[in-house]
């Protein structure tokens, strides 16, 4: 029998060791070297999915750019659902964060004069995306991880799986986690807690996301009573490889790559994204035009092309072509070497002289744990940052290269605010937290003993959920498809109660972990589907064929999904508008 050996106590507990989590940890460590910080991650930090980001990180540093430009690009990109005070703060803090990362050793690509190089990116008027070849996320994560090793007061719990938040006195006070190596269950208590666990792309069948993106932190906060905001807004990245869903960065288009359909036509010109320039035109690629339009519009264009029969058909479904041949081998090897490696290995294609097969795949969740501009949730002591959080700066559609910046800006805000909170509060001393650990122990023991008497395999339920979401809550949605999806998810939740494990041991029980992740995934899936059903308009990445127009009168609001028995309760709150009154999104002019 596994017993809790008492709580591990820290000042700050951070769940998740990716870009946001590590940035938050460093921020706390720099506020006060006497603060004791725990970073609890189900994988070793350098495995976090930040590592797979490719294209770059946006921030205003060049003379030809301005905060106003970046703010407008982000707000219009969000289809006016972003909170404008948050966007203003984000844009203004971005440059300092990028420079800080450079000071921490990140190997940014450079101009000949030795200053930082920037590239154009989708939906942005001015080129402002800092990049490290096309492995920006990899370099950012390793720079942050290696920098975090400097601080003695950051204590890592590597391969500890968070199962439930600890709560007492109306405050979040830590997390119950399983040490995967031993299977022991412990409470890791903190005076403040920051959730940085990333998104939940694995609820869908085809995704760029790694297997670990199971929305754990979103579900943890959700079950603790915090709302998940704007969950219906799921971003399909326009260029993923068919089948595997492996990401082919937007940077391919930033450098001038183009999308062509079955007939060799640059079809985006038919979708209000402007006029194509000749590939040899020095103005190509034009910002906020054609292939540098926002991701939601590009993914939607693909679906319409598919409906018109203009897409190609392969063993993994329909696709179009991404053409970067005209960029030349030298530029590809200098700025897109990882893309070349990926397409050769996983698509059997050398992009220097062949076309890359691509299609939209789920990539990012704009929605997440409801936080304010200070990264604080409605639960005192609980903060959130990164993809798992929704401030919101991304609204209904995120611009590429804003997300990596978001990790730093809000990771730091969360760290600083959590540190301040921790100085004014203490961990409960009344045995309540210990008893919560015991409840989790009992729950896990029940799962491991297969006491529910069921016969369901995890993979069966999981695959069912993913195909259901892909079919019913994809790029284009409809009352009927969403209803069916919601009903099916409720059934899957019932089936989950009958899950049977082959592995009933404790040490490194990865099947138990998969079962717990599936539990979290089902929560996230329900919040997405029910929020989508409730929003009867089309905005950004949420497109309803039965409500095709944007409806600011009723829906210039964030959705808030609250955990309840059966199905989530959906409420709304207003979007914060400061200097940019709602207008039409215009691209291609």
């Amino acid at each position: 029998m596994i017993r809790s050996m008492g709580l591990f106590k820290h000042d700050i507990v951070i769940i998740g060791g990716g870009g946001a989590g590590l940035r938050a940890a460093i921020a706390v460590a720099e506020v006060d070297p006497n603060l004791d910080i725990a970073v609890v991650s189900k994988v070793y930090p350098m495995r976090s999915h930040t590592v797979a980001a490719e294209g770059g990180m946006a921030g205003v540093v060049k003379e030809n750019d301005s905060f106003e430009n970046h703010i407008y690009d982000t707000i219009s990109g969000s289809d006016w659902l972003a909170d404008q005070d948050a966007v203003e703060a984000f844009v203004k803090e971005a440059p300092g964060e990028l420079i800080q990362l450079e000071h921490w050793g990140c190997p940014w690509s450079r101009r000949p004069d030795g200053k930082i190089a920037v590239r154009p990116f989708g939906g942005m008027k001015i080129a402002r995306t800092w990049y490290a070849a096309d492995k920006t996320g990899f370099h950012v994560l390793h720079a942050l991880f290696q920098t975090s090793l400097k601080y003695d007061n950051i204590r890592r719990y590597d391969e500890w799986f968070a199962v439930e938040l600890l709560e007492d006195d109306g405050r979040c006070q830590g997390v119950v986690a399983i040490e995967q190596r031993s299977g022991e269950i412990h409470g890791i208590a903190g005076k403040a807690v920051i959730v940085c666990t990333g998104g939940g792309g694995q609820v869908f069948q085809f995704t760029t996301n790694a297997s670990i993106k199971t929305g754990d932190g979103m579900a943890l906060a959700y079950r603790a009573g915090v709302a998940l905001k704007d969950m219906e807004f799921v971003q399909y990245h326009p260029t993923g490889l068919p089948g595997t869903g492996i990401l082919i960065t937007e940077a391919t288009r930033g450098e001038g790559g183009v999308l062509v359909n079955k007939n060799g036509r640059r079809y985006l010109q038919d979708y209000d994204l402007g006029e194509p320039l000749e590939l040899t035109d020095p103005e190509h690629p034009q910002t906020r035009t054609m292939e540098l339009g926002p991701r939601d519009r590009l993914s939607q264009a693909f679906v319409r092309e598919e409906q018109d029969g203009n897409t190609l058909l392969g063993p993994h479904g329909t696709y179009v072509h991404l053409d970067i041949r005209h960029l030349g081998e030298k530029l590809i090897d200098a700025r897109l070497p990882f893309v070349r490696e990926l397409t050769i290995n996983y698509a059997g294609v050398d992009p220097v002289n062949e076309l890359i097969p691509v299609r939209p795949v789920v990539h990012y969740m704009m929605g997440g744990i409801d936080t304010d501009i200070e990264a604080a949730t409605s639960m005192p002591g609980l903060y959130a940052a990164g993809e798992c959080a929704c401030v919101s700066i991304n609204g209904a559609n995120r611009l590429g290269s804003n997300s990596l910046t978001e990790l730093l800006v809000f990771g730091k805000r969360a760290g600083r605010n959590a540190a301040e909170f921790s100085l004014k509060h203490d961990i409960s001393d009344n045995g309540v937290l210990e008893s919560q650990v015991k409840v989790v122990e009992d729950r896990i023991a029940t799962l491991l003993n297969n006491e529910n008497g069921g016969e369901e395999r995890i993979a069966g339920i999981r695959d069912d959920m993913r195909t259901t979401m892909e079919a019913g809550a994809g790029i284009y949605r409809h009352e009927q498809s969403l209803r069916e999806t919601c009903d099916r998810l409720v059934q899957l939740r019932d089936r989950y109660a009958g899950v049977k494990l082959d592995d009933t041991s404790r040490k490194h029980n990865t099947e138990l972990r998969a079962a717990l992740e599936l539990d979290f995934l089902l929560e996230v899936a329900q919040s997405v589907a029910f929020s989508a059903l409730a929003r009867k308009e089309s905005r950004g990445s949420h497109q309803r064929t039965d409500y095709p127009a944007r409806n600011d009168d009723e829906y210039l609001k964030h959705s808030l999904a609250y955990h309840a028995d059966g199905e989530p309760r959906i409420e709304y709150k207003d979007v914060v508008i400061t200097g940019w009154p709602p207008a039409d999104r215009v691209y291609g002019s």
Partner: protein
Amino acid sequence: MANTVVLEVFRYDPDTQVARMQDFEVEYQDDWVVLDALNHIKDQIDGSLSHRWSCRMGVCGSCGMVVNGYPKLTCSAFIRDYLPGPIRVEPLANFEVERDLIVDFDMFLEKLQKVTPWLVRDEERPIEDGEHIQTPAQLAQYKQYTFCINCMLCYSACPVVSHEPDFLGPAALALGHRYNLDSRDQGKGLRLDEMLSSDGIWDCTFVGACSDVCPKHVDPAGAIQQAKVSGTMEYFKSFLMPTGSRK
């Protein structure tokens, strides 16, 4: 008629401390990698098989294992290259096995910490002063050594790691070298103390297997030999110019 291949998979039970090989017959698709087969086994045949994986695109470094005797990232090891099989899958060599295909990774993190793997500055540059200037040529000098994904295939291939467990090893030493070569860094002295120690670069006999297996072409063997040359020069410099501090 479905295509099937046999996987011979290493199993280790930490409770009984018993190791064995277990055969699985797996129906596969033409573009599958070994990782797909392992996941299939776990999902459909035996849920107790434990292995690490995440990104499935060769950048997170989680899925390193020994496939038919050679260290590989199983997400980049295509089944078609191993046909007709059987395909033997074992955990990385030279690491303690914790369970099945999962090894103790902490050994590497302890070694990494020793090479001071962060940018060291005498004085921090103020944020208002913007970025350090670093030309493309300066970046090129250390860029290759930044590619390490910490997958540990190199440690699995290195006979010195096998026989000298305290040897810092290819990846840690290559990362130390990466920072030494970074024009912004001022911490060479700190690092060389550890890198020139008895567990450092001098344990390396330039077998070169680490570079052979590295999926990211970091060439840690080259990094270590370069460190030997520059380390030796630093050593002699400190004799000839004893008043100059080692930077």
